[in-house]
């Protein structure tokens, strides 16, 4: 009898623990997003039109996927600077190798190339004990070189199936919404799977995960491989949105993705956060630059506002964490 009661007891306790913690952080970020959205609606009244809003979401799509990659890396207490290189490889492959007449199978191959590039990061980090920062700093340079080999200057032809899909609507809703929704659902499935639990366990406390029999190295390898595939998806999206390829397009997304993910609330210390939060971070940054454009302000206002938002969110969380730690002690 006493052996039967702990599992019964454990399930609700786990639920009770996770319930109050998530809404607090999420609510703050969601409120921020809402405020920014309302401001943007006032500055750009065109956004009341669903198609216009769809275009705004579309401009955010590349960052959405790079942020997904960065979220995965941060969740296992790592970082991925090579997203810029993988992004560029996928972007140039789409514009040169897949080409205007290419179909979906070839785009899947591009994703697989991203998976392989990410797996190299994973091997370096898991099996050769490189620090994630250093490993991905090195591969970022190498991957950028590969992208330059594929395409030396901006150009190329993007598959029409891709650009058509991006500018279509399904059930009256622009496809960019569907893409974000599908990405989010894929994350929820991953999160609920056994692998998702292992991923969070490794990020939360690697030693304990190892003792519990989690294959820590393999989990890390897979996480970085998936991050590579996500970054590649970002590169494909940019190619589709801009209808051209660029070997240097990825670099801007490296630090931007870290900003977006951290604004969302995923912790650099691992094990806490998720793609849903990162989505809110991505759209906060997107709205800021849209507000600045709509209000005819200088570019520097948008840059400064993004940096200040990052600082504010991180400072608030650091202070809140310290208060929690103090009250617990």
């Amino acid at each position: 009898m006493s052996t039967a009661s702990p599992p019964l007891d454990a399930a609700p306790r786990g639920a009770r623990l996770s319930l109050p913690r998530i809404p607090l952080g999420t609510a703050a970020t969601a409120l921020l997003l809402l405020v920014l959205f309302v401001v943007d609606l006032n500055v750009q009244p065109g956004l009341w039109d669903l198609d216009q809003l769809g275009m705004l979401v579309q401009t955010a799509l590349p960052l959405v996927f790079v942020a997904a990659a960065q979220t995965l890396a941060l969740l296992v207490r790592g970082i991925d600077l090579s997203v810029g290189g993988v992004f560029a490889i996928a972007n140039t492959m789409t514009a040169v190798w897949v080409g205007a007449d290419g179909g979906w199978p070839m785009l899947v191959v591009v994703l697989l190339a991203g998976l392989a590039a990410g797996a190299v990061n994973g091997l370096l980090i898991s099996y050769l004990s490189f620090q994630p920062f250093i490993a991905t700093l090195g591969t970022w340079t190498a991957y950028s070189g590969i992208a330059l080999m594929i395409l030396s200057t901006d150009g190329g032809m993007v598959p029409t199936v891709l650009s058509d899909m991006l500018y279509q609507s399904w059930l009256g809703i622009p496809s960019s919404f569907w893409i974000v929704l599908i990405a989010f659902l894929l994350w929820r499935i991953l999160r609920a799977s056994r692998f998702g639990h292992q991923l969070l366990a490794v990020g939360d406390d690697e030693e304990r995960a190892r003792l519990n029999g989690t294959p820590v190295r393999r989990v890390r390898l897979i996480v970085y491989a998936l991050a590579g595939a996500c970054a590649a998806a970002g590169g494909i999206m940019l190619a589709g949105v801009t209808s051209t390829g660029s070997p240097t397009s990825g670099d801007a997304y490296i630090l931007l993705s870290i900003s977006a993910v951290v604004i969302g609330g995923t912790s650099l210390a691992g094990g806490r956060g998720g793609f849903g939060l990162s989505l809110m971070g991505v759209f906060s940054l997107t709205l800021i630059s849209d507000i600045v454009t709509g209000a005819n302000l200088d570019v520097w206002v948008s840059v400064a506002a993004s940096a200040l938002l990052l600082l504010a969110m991180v400072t608030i969380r650091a202070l809140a964490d310290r208060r929690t730690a103090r009250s617990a002690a």
Partner: protein
Amino acid sequence: MRRLRGHVSVSTASAFGLCAVLFLIATIHSSGFASGGNVRQLLVFSAFIGFAALGQTVVVLSGGLDLSVPWLMAFGGIQLSHWAGDGLPGGVAIALVVLAGALIGLVNGIGVAWLRLPPIIMTLAMGGLIQAYLLSLGVLNSGDSGVPHAAEAAASDRIGPVPVVAVVWLVVAVAIGIVLARSAAGRRVYAVGANDEVARLSGIDVGRVRLAAYALSGASAAFAGVILAGYVGSTYLDIGAPYLFASIAAVIVGGASIMGGRGTYWGTVAGALTLTVLSAMLPLFHLSDAGLKVVYGVVILAGVWLSQSGGALVARLRQRPSSPTTASPEVKSVEP
């Protein structure tokens, strides 16, 4: 403690070794590589990385990271041009710019030390703020009124056959080397980087060490921006962009641990020379820009692996004959 120091000197030596081997290969391939003019050029380019990575080294040793270096460099050049354009004498303007860089770095330090923000985030946001400030200054008037003569002289004058920049760099390297290795301040930097909790308990003002490290990084990166602008003869927003990678790569190729507490500035000097020699020699082998980047990335990973695993291996081999207690270094090498 002696074991630790032996380890450090091994990885510094292996970084210098790597640089020497690369230089030798390039010289054998084409003898012009070792000509006075080319070596001078290599030294000047290395000095840009060396100054950009100077504060970065101390920040990394203390367990942090400074991602605002490229923007601090852009600030160094652009602010200098603005102040010089306003009629300040060149030398005064340079001193003011370096001081302003130190103040910006100090703000980084405040965020990291007092607000306890992750260094990556604090310095990333600071980079954004500097970028916003530089953008708000507006476009510089074109023409060569921008960079003052003093900065151009600093970048191109020579003492006999040796560029002034290289001499200044050597003097600074010796000074930083002595401070890090011999002074109490240097020991505090290593202690904070190795374990800040232990450092705090042993009475070190951890916050002050961090403040000083980031302030130094701000000053040295701004100075690197000044001499780079002097060399190029003009300034633009992205002038520092390559140095985000270069300043960190030089530190880690030089054998420092990105986790802090281990490394030397001499290692960084070797790292800066290695990076410069590498990027100068690869075109000799008819590599395209693209191939160059791939090789660059791979060599850096190999260099890091050599200086970390190789250093540990040498230390372990050296240990084996003298003492039977090999347990502790083995454990240490497995842990990371």
